[in-house]
């Protein structure tokens, strides 16, 4: 069974080329390197302050983390559907899938805002516990990337609405969705580090 989401026939990827464009991959690799350093910091603090991590993880609202993850994965799925639609020349459908992706991103931000509000009301603040400090460090940084991703999606939606993309030329749309998936990848790691592991 063939499983890959490949470009349509007649637009096969050239050897050595990359999905989207090289520029977005520089950004994606920088983003993932930044998060890799944060993951090393998480491991370092977990090793040196295990009691903070045991107490800290129990203070978080696991349901909010699960909701964030499901929304992010669903939003990523919509981004894939947008790319598939434009490859078929369905510009209107691609635009609608991109709007769905953006709504997912905004939903992610709203859940996080509510979670931070809940945290503050329940005394989960970034002082006195290295786990909670890491939690804010990781989630705020990720939040910034979600905002960048949303801005990229808005740009791609506008370009799509004005008919800038076609089955043969949709590099900008693909780049915006790739960045979105990279932000999803970072969250795939962050979620268990903060909400699952004890």
């Amino acid at each position, binding site marked *: 069974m063939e499983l890959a989401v490949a470009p349509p026939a007649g637009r096969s990827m050239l050897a050595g080329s990359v999905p989207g464009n090289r520029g977005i991959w520089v950004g994606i690799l920088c983003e993932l390197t930044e998060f890799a350093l944060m993951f090393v910091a998480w491991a370092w603090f977990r090793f040196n302050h295990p009691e903070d991590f045991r107490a800290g993880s129990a203070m978080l609202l696991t349901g909010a983390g699960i909701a964030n993850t499901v929304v992010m994965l669903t939003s990523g799925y919509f981004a894939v559907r947008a790319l598939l639609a434009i490859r078929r020349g369905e510009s209107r459908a691609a635009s609608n899938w991109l709007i769905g992706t953006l709504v997912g991103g905004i939903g992610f931000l709203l859940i996080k805002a509510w979670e931070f509000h809940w945290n503050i009301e329940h005394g989960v603040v970034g002082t006195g516990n290295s786990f909670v400090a890491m939690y804010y460090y990781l989630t705020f940084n990720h939040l910034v990337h979600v905002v960048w991703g949303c801005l990229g999606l808005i740009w791609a939606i506008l370009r799509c609405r004005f008919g800038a993309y076609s089955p043969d030329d949709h590099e900008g749309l693909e780049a915006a969705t790739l960045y979105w998936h990279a932000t999803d990848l970072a969250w*795939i790691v962050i979620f268990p580090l903060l909400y699952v592991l*004890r």
Partner: protein
Amino acid sequence: MTTRTSPERQATWVWLGLVALTLGSAWLGESAASAMVLAAVVAGIVAVKGLLVIRHYMGLTEVGSRLRLVMRLYFVVVPALILLAGSLA
């Protein structure tokens, strides 16, 4: 014989798999599993989810691509870090 699944249907299955793995790991986190077992399973789930997104959502399917290698390596090294942190905790 090769059966070709529509890309839309394939993307839907991948999304369902990713959500199921997320819910599974959350359930495991609430169970009585030891920290080491939890770290091992979570590391495996993170690796599978990452590799699924890289292949099926980002479209990095070209055999021999250095970019694909780097991205795949990321989801070997980071789970290894999770496993190491779990074994030292």
